[in-house]
């Protein structure tokens, strides 16, 4: 056990699974880097942010494939390889690039099993960076997990810390369904204790990072950290919060969400993705439909505005949910008084 960054945790998960299973291969743009360059160096980058560094050197050109900048062909190739005996982990660099290969994910990988009458297995992982906070602007900052969550046949993972990232990625690689694994690019240097050994965290089991009596906060990915921060501040003022990290948006651990709302009676949902048809609306609908009687206050969503992600720091800061906004949302649901009593 030692402190590892989010980046190192993912790299270690990939390495250990490649060591364990020769069918696991990697592909993506510049996941090694330097192929065909005049310097003659391969593994020059190890991914655009260095996440796959060293894996080409360790596993060689038969396991680690740099691709042309050609998302449709290589994501499609990953799907085809998964359907024919390999367990590919394809890196889509920025999730925003899914526009170039959505067919391969949405119409091919996601559909094979159902459309072929349950006879296909497509053990594929697509890793991609998501999230704002990097001044990467509108085409490199989106949090598109709701898009994938919407598609039956896909599993969608949004890890919230290095420990979670390693265990969930190993689970993703061992899973026999196509998995979209989304890494918040702002978190790559976050550190925490991560076991050196391989371990897996099951999908569809939410993690309660805080347990409290007053308000349930459901947060996704990086937002879990902000929710924890807000919960710790509120605790000092005697407001105790349960913070739920669902870990996977598909499958979604709705049972845990409902149980916690039954206990606290108040719900705040924190979602970095665009606000229409996102996870916040999904969870809000779930609770409104199935735990209406437990609610003591309206559900509050802490989400960005319905705009593209802006470039300028001042605007991007306004765009993203943060601990202060979560805190104020929690206070508002705590302060809520029903004006009209039930007859």
């Amino acid at each position, binding site marked *: *056990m030692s402190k590892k960054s989010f980046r190192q945790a993912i790299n270690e998960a990939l390495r250990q699974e490649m060591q364990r299973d020769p069918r696991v291969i990697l592909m993506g743009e510049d996941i090694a880097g330097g192929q065909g360059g005049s310097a003659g160096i391969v593994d020059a980058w190890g991914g655009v942010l260095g996440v796959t560094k060293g894996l080409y050197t360790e596993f060689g050109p038969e396991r680690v494939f740099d691709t042309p900048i050609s998302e449709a062909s290589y994501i499609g190739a990953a799907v085809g390889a998964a359907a024919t005996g390999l367990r590919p982990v394809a890196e889509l660099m920025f999730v925003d690039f899914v526009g170039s290969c959505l067919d391969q994910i949405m119409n091919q990988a996601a559909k094979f099993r159902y459309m072929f009458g349950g006879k296909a297995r497509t053990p594929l992982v697509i890793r991609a960076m998501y999230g704002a906070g990097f001044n990467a602007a509108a085409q490199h900052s989106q949090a598109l997990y709701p898009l994938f969550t919407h598609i039956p046949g896909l599993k969608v993972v949004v890890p919230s810390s290095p*420990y979670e990232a390693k*265990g969930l990625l190993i689970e993703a690689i061992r899973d026999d369904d196509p998995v979209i694994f989304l890494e918040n690019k702002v978190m790559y240097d976050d550190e925490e204790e991560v*076991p*050196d*050994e*391989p*371990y*897996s*965290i*099951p999908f569809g*089991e939410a993690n*309660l990072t805080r*347990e409290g009596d007053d308000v349930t906060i459901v947060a996704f990915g990086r937002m879990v950290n902000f929710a924890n921060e807000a919960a710790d501040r509120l605790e*000092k003022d005697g407001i105790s919060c349960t913070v739920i990290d669902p870990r996977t948006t598909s499958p979604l651990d709705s049972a845990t969400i409902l149980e916690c709302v039954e206990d606290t009676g108040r719900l705040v949902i924190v979602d970095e993705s665009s606000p229409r048809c996102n996870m916040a609306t999904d969870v809000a609908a779930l609770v409104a439909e199935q735990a209406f009687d437990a609610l003591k206050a309206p559900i509050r969503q802490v989400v960005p505005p319905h705009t593209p992600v802006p470039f300028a720091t001042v605007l991007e800061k306004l765009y993203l949910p943060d601990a202060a906004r979560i805190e104020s949302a929690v206070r508002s649901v705590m302060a809520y008084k029903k004006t009209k009593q039930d007859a």
Partner: protein
Amino acid sequence: MTDLITPITMPKFGLAMTEGKITSWNIPSGAHVEAGQEIADIETTKITNGYESPASGTLRRRIATEGETLPVGALLGVLAEPAVSDADIDAFIAKFQADFSSGSTADTQADHAEPIMVSVGDLTLRVQEAGQGDATPVLFIHGFGGDLGNWMLNQNALSTDRRTITFDLPGHGGSSKNVGDGTPAGFAATTAALLDKLAITSVHVVAHSLGGAIALDLARTCPQKVASLSLIAPAGLGQGINMDFIEGFISADRRKTLEPVLNYLVHDKTLISRQMVEDIIRFKRLDGAIQGLQTIAKACFPHGRQAEDLRPVLVSFSGPAQIIWGEADEVLSPDDAKNLPDTIPVTLLPLTGHMPQLEKAADVNAALIKFVK
């Protein structure tokens, strides 16, 4: 005047502890306390434990507020006789805080050492050493599903004049997950090999639960290595075993299902912290961990009974031996300690569950220290 003032500082429960939260003061400011009296509850990520006053005196100041998290060694409060003036106490506090923030009072003991990984045959074992000195070393052996952290409140207490060793058995904690045949005899052989690797010829063995059976097997096969036996709620002396605990420990995979299982371990259920549950869930997620536990359970507790009767080994053991057991143990019955020769003292602790070394650390430590001296 400062020799009349005793600082109360954040204690270090276990080698990994770096900070703690004062969850409650049990003594009002200005009240008299006796040495050894519990004056506060300290919560770490691992456990909540009572903090015993280091001296007698009046609790003149409570510096730390309830709910505050502070590093190990930080000033929590000040004890002094009524004669000491407020000004002197203020000066003492100011000096302490200045020294503390500059690091000069920082804990410089070598016990910050991280556990080391030791190769024993095909296995790698996680080993935590502490202490030095010429006295015979102490080896702690944990039980089923445990790890070296089970001794976090005990290892330091025995490390003042000797080397102490805690380790994770195969299949546990950070050690290799290959448990071999999963029998106490198999683990005893590994334990003996570990001692050889550490160049230790003879140890006082402190062993808990299934570790007790392992210790007895070690005493049977390598009597020269075992200077004494302190067995805490040991297996091997009877047939009964709470299989709900064993099976639940193996199968429960969520906090909600595991917590009731862990509650079997202690009399005071509040001792089972969120973090303790989380740590066990995390351990069980490691590749091979559950399979290892299953192998051990099958080898040691087939058909819901303990497989091996090691009572004759204990009776014929030539060195000193003692037994410590919680009267309210819900995993192994303290009745198993009945009908042993009078030469083997049995300490029964009231209102104590299966883990006296955590639940009644002070009593257990006192019994251990007395025994190894």
